């Protein structure tokens, strides 16, 4: 029961972060600022959701279940290494293409 509660709370937090990411991508004014929610909120959201799934998977503790949970955490590790790199790559492409950053007082792009 406690386990289920933890799973639900984690999953809810993850969904909140994902929602923030989705709305942020739509609302921020230009390309550079849009990358902030896309790069960060999605990473933490997937960390929380994956952790909750991994905990739920441990409802009966066997070797194979534990290994599956470890694999899920492996995905998290991979996402944590690759997601900032992908964000940086996209931003680098924007910089090289000469996109001008949004500044205060400009219209939304």
């Amino acid at each position, binding site marked *: 029961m406690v386990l289920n509660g933890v799973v639900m709370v984690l999953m809810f937090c993850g969904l909140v972060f994902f929602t923030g990411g989705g709305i942020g991508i739509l609302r921020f004014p230009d390309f550079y600022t849009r990358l902030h929610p896309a790069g960060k909120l999605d990473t933490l959201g997937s960390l929380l959701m994956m952790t909750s799934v991994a905990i739920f998977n441990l409802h009966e503790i066997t070797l194979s279940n534990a290994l599956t949970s470890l694999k899920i955490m492996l995905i998290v590790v991979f996402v944590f290494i690759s997601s900032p*790199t992908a964000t*940086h790559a996209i931003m680098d492409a924007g910089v090289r293409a000469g996109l001008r950053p949004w500044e205060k007082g400009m219209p939304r792009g």
Partner: protein
Amino acid sequence: MKRLALLIVILSGGLLLYATKDFPSWGDPNSPASTHVSPRYLEKSLEETAVPNVVTAVLADYRGYDTMFETTVIFCAGVACFMLLRKFEPEERDLYYRHIPTGLTLHIKGEKQIPSTSKEFEKIDAIWTPYDFIINTVSRFLVPFIQLFALYVIAHGHHSPGGGFQGGVILGASIIVLAVAFNLRTAVRRFGEKIDGIMSALGVFIYAGVGAFCAILGAEFLNYRALAKILPVGKVMARSHGILAVEIGVGIAVMAVMICIYNNVASEGKFDEGL
């Protein structure tokens, strides 16, 4: 014109959706797809081949010919790509070099070349994606683990949704990451064009070779049961191991062909600078 195209797309999509109404419903036990030979596969594949994953058993054992010629088709795609795109005459063009200790860029016009043995200069691309420190280091760290995962997928085709095709694609992608993150030259230095060609033929050869070996041992072509004569296992396990050998061949072929197609398309067949 755009509107006409949209109209056609919507119309054909609607037609397709309309046609799906006549399909048997999902999971219907009386549909033609699940009445003739499928129940036999589902019931017998585990005891006949010792492979828990029915898809793998059907793909590599019961329908071995099919998969063999699929691999051949992939091989042909690689060969066609090579034949159509690869250019061998060098073009006259400007060359760029980076002086590694200082980071200066040299621009040389005409054909003159700094010999490639010099350690201080590194040839760089003319349409040039600059050296990106973060991407390079991270992909350098990820490539071994991507390769390990690919080998895991190939080796566990019996137990998980993997197999030669999927593992080969991931294995090829791990080399393509190198080409994308550094440049094509780095990837080609690590996995040369000649080796690539040999590997793509070798994959098909392993598949057909296993089949022919079964024929030599006195059974039909691709009947892995015959392998029990040389392997220290029973006939059922011999089939399982035969499937593994075949999957390895498929993986090698798919990997090499992926890399070949990427290299040729990305560098327009010149193999000097990619993407």
